[in-house]
């Protein structure tokens, strides 16, 4: 089975800082692989362990570190699609990835449910629609038996189980098994694995097809909350009375 995993590199969400003067993130935040994408990769590696075949990690936009991590975790090869304006908006990202996926014809495409930066969650579904293959999102569990997936999904009403046969796009949530850590051996091996570098033109895409549909306009902070009341070292009975008085004053006690 050929399994493709779509990976994006994002600013480290744990190191995220905003500069109000720049109206942007502080420069130089370490880029890391988007967390959900690593859960997707882990699922892909487990699927390969079951069925054999290969796992290819791919990214539209700069993602060398993330792709290297993917190889060190056990992917067989990587594809870096880079070019001016990439990754672009989710439409452009999906256009580039769709063109590459048409060429590769994988049986299964795993991706993260969304990214921690723009977080549109559009890329997986858009790729599925444009390849005209089924989409299963919010995946928290899966089994592959007799050529069919049974997928467990987390949705508002509980857990939904769906059956679908490849080719399919699967979008991973982090309730799936934890991504493995790269071993030293894995990191050594990764250096010998093939990394293909492509430009959109290599995929037959002309610049006109890479025009974003939407435009982002800077970043800002949500209105800050004023500091609240903090009771520390207050005897419990008194703390409870004060809490009740507060709730009462807010009209929260019916």
């Amino acid at each position, binding site marked *: 089975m050929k399994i493709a995993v779509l990976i994006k590199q994002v600013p480290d*969400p744990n190191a995220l800082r905003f500069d109000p003067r720049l109206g942007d993130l502080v420069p130089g935040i370490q880029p890391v692989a988007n967390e959900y994408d690593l859960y997707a990769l882990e699922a892909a590696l487990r699927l390969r362990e079951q069925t054999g075949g290969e796992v290819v990690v791919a990214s539209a936009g700069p993602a060398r570190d993330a792709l290297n991590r993917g190889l060190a975790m056990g992917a067989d090869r990587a594809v870096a699609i880079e070019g001016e304006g990439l990754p672009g908006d989710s*439409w452009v990202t*999906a256009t580039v990835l769709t063109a590459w996926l048409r060429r590769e014809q994988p049986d299964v495409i795993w991706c993260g449910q969304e990214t921690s930066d723009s977080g549109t969650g559009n890329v997986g579904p858009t790729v599925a629609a444009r390849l005209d293959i089924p989409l*299963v999102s919010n995946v928290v569990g899966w089994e592959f038996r007799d050529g069919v997936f049974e997928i467990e999904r*987390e949705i*508002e009403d*509980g857990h939904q189980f769906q059956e*679908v046969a490849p080719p399919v796009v699967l979008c991973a949530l982090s309730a799936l098994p934890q991504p493995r850590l790269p071993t030293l051996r894995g990191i050594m091996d990764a250096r010998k694995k093939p990394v293909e570098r492509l430009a959109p033109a290599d995929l037959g895409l002309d610049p006109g097809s890479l025009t974003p549909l939407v435009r982002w306009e800077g970043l*800002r902070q949500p209105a800050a909350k004023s500091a609240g009341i903090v009771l520390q070292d207050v005897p*419990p009975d008194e703390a409870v009375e004060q809490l009740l008085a507060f709730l009462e004053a807010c009209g929260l006690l019916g």
Partner: protein
Amino acid sequence: MAGNGVLVVIETSGGQPRPAALELCGAAQAVQEALGSATALVVGQGIGAATEQAARLGVARVLAVDAPEFAEPVAERVARAVLVAWEQLDPALVLLPGTTLGRDVAALVAARRGVPHLVDVVALGVTADELMVTRPVYQSKLLTTVRASRTRAAVVTVRAGSFRPPEPGEPVPIERLPVELQEPDRRVRVTRMVDKPRGQVDLESAPVVVVGGRGVGGPEGFEQLAELAELLGGALGCTRAVSDLGWRPHYEQIGQTGKQVRPKLYLGVGVSGAVQHTVGMQGSETVVVINRDSNAPLVKQADFAVIADWNEIVPRLIARLRERRGRSA
């Protein structure tokens, strides 16, 4: 300029409209002067009550897609219904709720039509030549404005709680919309559903949400929190740490990979306030926190924080609330 009017997709669950979907009628009202009147598309099975409700929410028309194939939420099928309605109406804007289904459907429909999907929107505006939305990014830590040209139609998903449903008025007539599924729409099949139990206060619409974190220490502590929630007229939620430990079911989890809540009162007990959790409760009106650690991030977001072991506070609070209830009964 592309299309005219607003198509509002009313998602249903078990025949009932999702609250987040009814709020879309409020969003449609906010832009109908610029874009034209709204049509509600109600999709599901046994949706009579939902269509009647939608018919009173300021829309000009209601289209009902009511068939067994739509009983279960499957994105490709609902997307087909939206595409059929699109053919009929040629709308300038399509609104869907920012639910798991709504977001999939929106992305599929937008891709098939070659138009943008603007995601998880909290505010919506229209200028002469652009659609302009506000949305949270970076896991809701920051906001941005996204613009899309009005030369194309656009699909927008709206974050729950961003608009109010209009006051119900006189109903408009309800028309049936026949939708024939195509072969590809049947590639995904729902085999079963592990439901959340019914009859409890719905977490997402509860006015009060009591949330327990790992600091509660075990499933027993949650029995007290459940009673506290009941006394406050609310629902019980938990953090991912708690559902991963199996102390509470996953469907009670709040946050990035769980539910989004916007109650009047959020009461967090033994919850640290990791960003993956707080993205799910940021819209709460009043935040009260009980935590042993004054440095817990959630304490900084609190309107009222008690720094103490919850075992000292919660039993006393329950006793006092029971007393009050006894008095008023």
